[in-house]
């Protein structure tokens, strides 16, 4: 566990060592706001919930997660630090887990940038906060699955662009072939064969007691 934490800290520090991470977080926050308020018509719907945000989030994660995961291993190989990493007294499993955890935390930070929207709907009305909280959790788990797939694709090649090309068809699976309206039609979603991460994500954010 100590080794995992060491790799985790190193990788997380690597993310925030360059301004690219901050730029990326800002772009992600702006895009989620754009999709929620303008494309998703949050105000016009007249309902205080974050359904438009969670409808478009899987599509945004399709952009965000490959950008994070494609550098996990290919960057190490390109920079030549993979040899150094492999000669450290750290098992491969610990290195893989640490890198994946750092990616998950980075996505969590990106999702945290969207929390003002949660505050906004609470200001506008009385949303179901339990469902919103579980939806955030579901989104993080979905991002975790995408990151795990992306990490494997990144390990395949030293070229980040090729890693991205490998990754995109795998994370999108069949979900990109579906019409976007299926995200909002839950009954149809249950019947249609969406990609499994997306389908489970949808189930997690629509179920209620």
């Amino acid at each position: 566990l100590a080794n995992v934490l060491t790799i985790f800290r190193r990788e997380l520090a690597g993310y925030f060592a360059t301004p690219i991470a901050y730029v990326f977080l800002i772009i992600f926050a702006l895009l989620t706001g754009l999709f929620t308020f303008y494309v998703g018509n949050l105000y016009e719907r007249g309902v205080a919930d974050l359904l438009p945000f969670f409808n478009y989030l899987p599509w945004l994660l399709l952009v965000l997660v490959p950008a994070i995961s494609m550098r996990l291993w290919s960057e190490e190989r390109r920079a030549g630090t993979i040899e150094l990493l492999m000669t450290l007294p750290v098992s491969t499993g610990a290195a893989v887990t640490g890198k994946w955890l750092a990616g998950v935390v980075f996505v969590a930070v990106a999702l945290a940038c969207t929390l003002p929207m949660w505050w906004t709907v609470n200001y506008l009305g009385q949303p179901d906060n339990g469902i919103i909280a579980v939806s955030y959790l579901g989104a993080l788990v979905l991002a975790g699955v995408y990151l795990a797939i992306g990490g494997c694709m990144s390990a395949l090649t030293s070229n980040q662009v090729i890693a991205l090309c490998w990754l995109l068809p795998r994370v999108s699976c069949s979900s990109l072939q579906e019409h976007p309206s299926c995200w909002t039609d839950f009954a149809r979603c249950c019947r249609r064969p969406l990609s499994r991460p997306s389908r489970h994500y949808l189930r997690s954010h629509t179920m209620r007691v």
Partner: protein
Amino acid sequence: VTRGVVDLPAVIWAASMIAFWLFATSVMVEMKKGA
């Protein structure tokens, strides 16, 4: 206000997916290390 429900089969499925792909990554890195 309702409480969000954790869909257990979905969580188990996601955890197994993550475990599988992390294991595959480990195998891939080991193979590249040996090459």
